[in-house]
């Protein structure tokens, strides 16, 4: 049930966010500082999601083989691999490390 609540509310919020510019604010230039803050929202949330997703389990610190997967992803990104390749490499490295290291 809570899944459908999330689907509905996030859907409405996204539709409004996307429509605001083209419907109401065409030609309006947001102030420089506001624009800088908004530009940073995406990278900070992504960074927090990566850290929590790789270093914790539930409410505990739990660094494990996921770090190896992340390292392999970093190497793939440095080699300019496309997104799908990055994800496959990270998952494969995690699965293999888990099998080898327990």
């Amino acid at each position, binding site marked *: 049930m809570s899944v459908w609540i999330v689907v509905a509310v996030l859907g409405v919020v996204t539709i409004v966010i996307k429509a605001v510019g083209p419907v109401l604010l065409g030609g309006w230039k947001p102030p420089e500082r506001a624009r800088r803050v908004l530009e940073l929202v995406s990278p900070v*949330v992504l960074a927090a999601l990566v850290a929590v997703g790789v270093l914790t389990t539930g*409410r505990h610190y739990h660094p494990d083989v996921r770090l190896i997967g992340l390292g392999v992803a970093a190497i793939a990104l440095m080699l300019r691999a496309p997104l799908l390749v990055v994800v496959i490499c990270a998952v494969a490295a995690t699965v293999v490390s888990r099998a080898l290291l327990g």
Partner: protein
Amino acid sequence: MANTNYTPMKASARWQAVGSVAAAAFAFGVSFGVVAVAAGFSAAAAVVMSATAFGGAAQIGAASVIGAGGGPLGAVTTGSLLNLRYLPMGITAADAYHGPWWRRALLAQLLGDETWAISRRPDGSHDSRLLLTAGAAVYVVWLAGSALGAIVLSSFGNISSWGLDMVSPAIFFALLWRQLTTRRAQLAAGSAVVIALVLVPISPPGVPVIAASLACLIGLLA
């Protein structure tokens, strides 16, 4: 529109751009379907979310908060924060949408990161046709990919042993990688990691990521 000195993109280059963006979106859509089902979504919920909250990072962010035991509020807040970037992007691309307000509101839903990027001209305006063509193509393959990922995956049994817990962090990491182009972004991202990790043991799931979003205020500094 100040595009008199702009040479229109050739049809072949246009289709190539649309094709490569659509191929990437399809694969990303399959990943979302996988992550959503692993987090406890039904296939129908995953596809409806792709249709309405069209934005890969936000959808996977919301699903991973649910999967980690966070409540609906945390999931909605995380997803909304990740889709908030469409506000400034929609404002800069506003001139590319024409017609009555409801038509502009409807077409604006096709906005996505890659389509916004490829339709942007050197003068900062947007190629309206490319924005909408690529947007429509990505929308269709995104839905198809989500459905494939969710339906195919939900017919298998235990998926946690496949390393699928690494799919969403890897996607977030790849998206983040492209956004760390300035010192300010690197500093903000580093601060967000510290805030989130400090809060993990002392706050409910979902809260650390939301609190970490305050690191965006670093943008107020000169």
